[in-house]
């Protein structure tokens, strides 16, 4: 199974990597439990900075698409097929839209929503 990235593509390199790996999982090109190349190997093969590959792996690990098992390496997560189909960005957007709609129905102005969102983001708890 091969992946191809384009360094001139407007999509960030780490996003291209995340998408390609998810696509390989969804299309059953790689199966849950399969091992993945090390960050160093993939970075050298794609002539990328290893931080870019590390960032992509971190995001995939967060989304439970891959799992790191220390010195044994990185593997495709057992629930990777379902988790790869889940779009976290779309989920966040839907939840925010719902919240904004509820605020507007209650008569809150746009600027008040922006200030509240900014305060919420800057809150120590977030």
């Amino acid at each position: 199974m091969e992946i191809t990235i384009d360094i001139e593509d407007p999509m960030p390199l780490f996003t291209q990597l995340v998408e390609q790996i998810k696509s390989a999982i969804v299309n059953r090109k790689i199966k849950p439990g399969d091992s993945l190349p090390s960050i160093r190997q993939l970075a050298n093969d794609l002539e990328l900075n290893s931080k870019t590959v590390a960032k992509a792996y971190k995001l995939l690990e967060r989304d439970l698409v891959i799992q790191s098992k220390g010195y044994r390496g990185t593997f495709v997560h057992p629930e990777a097929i379902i988790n790869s189909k889940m779009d976290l960005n779309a989920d966040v957007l839907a939840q925010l839209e719902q919240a904004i709609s509820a605020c507007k129905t209650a008569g809150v102005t746009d600027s008040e929503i922006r200030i509240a969102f900014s305060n919420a983001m800057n809150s120590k708890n977030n």
Partner: protein
Amino acid sequence: MSIHILFYALFLSQIILISYYYPTQIIKRIESVIKNFPPENYPKLYPESIEKVIAAKVRYQFLNQIIIVIGLILMGVYAFMSKDYDGDKKFAEGLPLMFGMVQFIPFMMIEISGFRQFKLMRKANKSTSRTAGLAPRKLFDYVSPISVITAIILLFGYVLFDLYIHDFIFTSDIIIKIITLCLVHALFIALAIGQLTGKRLDPHQAVKDRSQQTEFSLQSMVAVSMLVSLFFIANSAVDFFQLGYLEILINSIYFQVIAFFGIGGMLRNIRLDNTNFDVYKAEKVTV
């Protein structure tokens, strides 16, 4: 006398194998590439002009011919010098080793030229897309654990054997041999890491071909490691059993076996009909 006849046969075989047979195979391979994958259709394969490739091939052929002549002269010199030799002591044992090193010079030149070509290929590569395999490259995917364990056992076996026959005294000779082995194996480990996780030298090389090349490189390094240990064991054994007259034969055999596994292995394993040359074709320009 029989040692002389054996030596002539082995030395002649060393000359033919390393300076005639394998170079002829390599030249045939270069000619086949030029014929079947010409620069008009496969421009990425030729970062330099075809004339330069042909000139390098002619130089390589000529250098090997000179080495054949040197080898034959050395055989004559040996015949002249050995006429008073009594046949049970060491005599000119370094000859096959020294000559063997000279024989490998054209191969090293071809390797260096290859690295230069790859550098030019990388420089000329304007493609913005990069491809990689999603399978990890691990040592035991390419070489069997048994071969690696055998190589390690042979390495320690040699050290123990040499120490045993020298009553476990670290003589300067043993220390030099151990340091040599350590350096050779450190180089192998660095090369193996480079093969497994390093950048590919050829920017266009297909993932499958890289995997095949990695397999060959790792297998040949393990084989050479075993051979070096066996060679050191054999050399120490002939000294210990006072069979020094055999050393000249062992040295010649050693170089031929190294060439068989190294150059011969490359010719047998990395075949042109299995290599993906489509990656060297010109990219289609879309308007």
